[in-house]
């Protein structure tokens, strides 16, 4: 176990290095000139645009620009946003908790809705419950996030006046208002993931319920729900946990559309705006931090396997 953990941690740095090169390279392929975007309404002044390019080192060779950035990163400096003139690290520290809160709430919605529905669908296979669960799953997968978001704003905020339509209040400032501003986007975000979790839970449960140990448990006279929850579910959870962790990682990387629709100032919105504004330091910084979180989440997922089923080997 210790050796396995050590080798996984040792893989993190080369992974991040590779990610940084890829994102830096991909940025260069993007059409559009950051200097023109930064100049804004003054983009008609060629001398100004040239000056901006010079100040941002955009006229230097790409490898030189990369090494300059990398040197700063190794000294703990992710650079400054060209648009906002704020440190990228400060922006990430501001936005990450927002996306984290949204992601956790969305994930909870997904688990609370998706896993029980998946279990029910598997246990009541080919009944009305199964079809209902599949229908809800199909709805969750098919409905575009932005459409659902806007419809919910219209119904819940404008017509019914139950919840604020957009924005964000930090948990530490006012937890009630914070939940009020995040419950709708979290539901919209969690809705699609609930459908995915439901489908996978159902498949995994069907496999588990067909195993010999489940037949043995039933033969021993255990109640059906003990058989399902204590025996079958425990093994069915392994692929579901993997999937869940991957989905949580995807959530953390930015619930882009949802944050745009609900104006939630999270990491997804930050990086989308950075792309549109060609704010390279923000793009690079956010991608690097997100990659690090993703890698760490995968590591935690693998460790969770040992908790769920200690007999598993590192392989």
């Amino acid at each position, binding site marked *: 176990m210790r050796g396995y953990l050590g080798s996984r941690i040792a893989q993190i740095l080369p992974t991040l290095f590779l990610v940084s090169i890829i994102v830096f390279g991909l940025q260069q392929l*993007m*059409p*559009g*000139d950051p200097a*023109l*975007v*930064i*100049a*804004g*309404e*003054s*983009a*008609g*002044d*060629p*001398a*100004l*645009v040239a*000056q*901006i390019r010079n*100040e941002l080192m955009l006229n230097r060779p790409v490898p030189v620009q990369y090494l300059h950035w990398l040197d700063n990163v190794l000294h703990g400096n992710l650079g400054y946003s060209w*648009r*906002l*003139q*704020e440190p990228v690290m400060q*922006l990430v520290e*501001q*936005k990450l908790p927002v996306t984290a809160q949204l992601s956790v709430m969305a994930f909870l919605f997904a688990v609370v809705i998706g896993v029980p529905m998946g279990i029910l669908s598997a246990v009541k296979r080919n009944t009305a419950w199964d079809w209902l669960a599949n229908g809800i799953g199909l709805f969750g997968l098919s409905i575009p996030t932005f459409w659902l978001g*806007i419809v919910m*704003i*219209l119904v819940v*905020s*404008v017509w019914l*006046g139950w919840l*604020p*339509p*957009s*924005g*964000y209040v930090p948990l530490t400032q006012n937890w009630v208002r914070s939940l009020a501003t995040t419950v709708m986007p979290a539901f919209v975000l969690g809705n699609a993931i609930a459908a995915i979790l439901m489908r996978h839970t159902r498949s995994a449960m069907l496999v588990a319920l067909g195993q010999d140990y489940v037949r043995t448990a039933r033969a021993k006279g255990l109640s059906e729900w003990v058989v399902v929850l204590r025996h079958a579910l425990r093994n069915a959870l392994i692929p579901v946990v993997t999937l869940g962790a991957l989905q949580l990682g995807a959530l953390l990387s930015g619930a882009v559309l949802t944050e*745009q*629709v*609900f*104006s939630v*100032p999270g990491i997804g*919105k*930050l990086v989308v*705006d950075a792309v*549109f*504004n*060609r704010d390279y330091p923000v793009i690079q910084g956010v991608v690097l931090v997100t990659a690090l979180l993703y890698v760490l989440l995968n590591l935690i997922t693998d460790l969770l396997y040992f908790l769920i089923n200690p007999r598993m080997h590192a392989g």
Partner: protein
Amino acid sequence: MRRIFFAASAAAFLLLGAAPRPAAAQTLRIGLREDPDVLDPTLGGSYVGRIVFAGMCDKLFDYDTKLDIVPQLATGYEYKDPTHLILHLRPGVTFQDGEKFDAAAVKYTLMRDLTMKGTLRKGQIDAISAIDVIDPLTVELVLKSPDSPLLAQLAGRPGIMVAPEVAEKEGAKFGLHPVCAGPFSFVKRVPEQEIVLQRFPGYWNAKAIHFDQVVYVPIVNSAVRLANLQSGALDLVEYIVPTDVPAVEKDPKLKLAMSWSPGYDGITFNVGKGPMAKSPIGESADLRKAFDLAIDRKALIQVVYNGLYPAIAQANPPGSPFYIPSVQPPARNIPEAQKLVAASGFKAPVTVTMIVPNSPDILQAAQVVQAMVKPAGFDLKIQAMEFASSLAAAHAGDFQSYLIGWSGRADADGNMYSFLHTGGGFNWGGYSDPVVNKLLDEARLYTSVPERDAVYAKLWARVHEQMPLIYLWGLKNIVGMKKELMGFRQVPDGIIRIQGMSMAN
């Protein structure tokens, strides 16, 4: 036990509700169409940034509802001669940190605009060669040459005065906590979430301020912005899209304010920049005139913008003092357009590519134009592009035609010089005509509007012979707000001025 707990909780809840609360500060919540860039008037380039500056930073001059230049931190001006502009300053004004506003502060700010690393203001006021402090309330600007648009610049971002001590100390970080001489002080900013300002008690015009706090909230999606206004989460939205106007008009809790704007949209042709200029439409003025004749502007505006915008054939829309009434868009005339296509020597259908920023309304307008020009003999291919990419393509001359807008300037020179003068920064199509250059330069020498308009009338006649640009529609400022919000003054530059606004009880 459980019952006692719930009863105690309910009692506590009721008591909390019944306890007397301090009077809530009156806050004005304004929705913006996007998040501003850096809040430093020297370094910032976004339009919505100007709206936030209006809340916290006064300028030397301002505009009134007729777009006339009026005093603000400067009480007046005079020209000693065409190259010496004297500014008289308002006495008794302080910055939000207590510093005195005086001639030295004006000199400091203007020099900062001219020389600071990263300044976006230099090109706007580089007519200034020297700044002299005559006395604490008088500044003399020495100009390199006569420059009538300069005064308009001092009513814009270059005229925003910053607290010199703070600006000097903070340098490029000034935008993280700006200090100016406006009605509200900066409190905090969470990027993409909100900008909070607090009333400045020492403001020179304090009696015009009736709010304790202003919060600017950027909401990019227009439907969500409207939903926030309808639900009461916002008090005012600085831009309602034309297709949402009926919804606001129907809502008994809301009202609209609409005015002309100096902005416009049009089609720029590449007539002289790079290999893409060597296209049929780039080489033939007849084809460009035919293209113009094939477009029914009124129908296009009706379809895309509910008929709200004016059809135009010049850079300064109706309402502008520089609008020339005799310069009108032609009625759609397909037979005449077909004759021009035939006279061009190119065989119909003539293929034209048009790059179009991928915003829904502009794309829709491009599709309408595509349908309209087809009977005239054009096969228009639309290339939708993300905005920054389209801008880069235009700068590189990598286009045949480009459907794009301009936010507009109060002074005509800002809407014309860069676009039509040889080498102009926004002259993406590489248009070059010595007669037009001479007329543009000549207009800069006159200070009176009628004299400048006489020059511009000649200019439009010349430009329409060659048609390097087709002006399609002028924009409008459409502001939505709660019915009880009083005192809103609609100024054509679209900036929200909080002075005089209040919430009726």
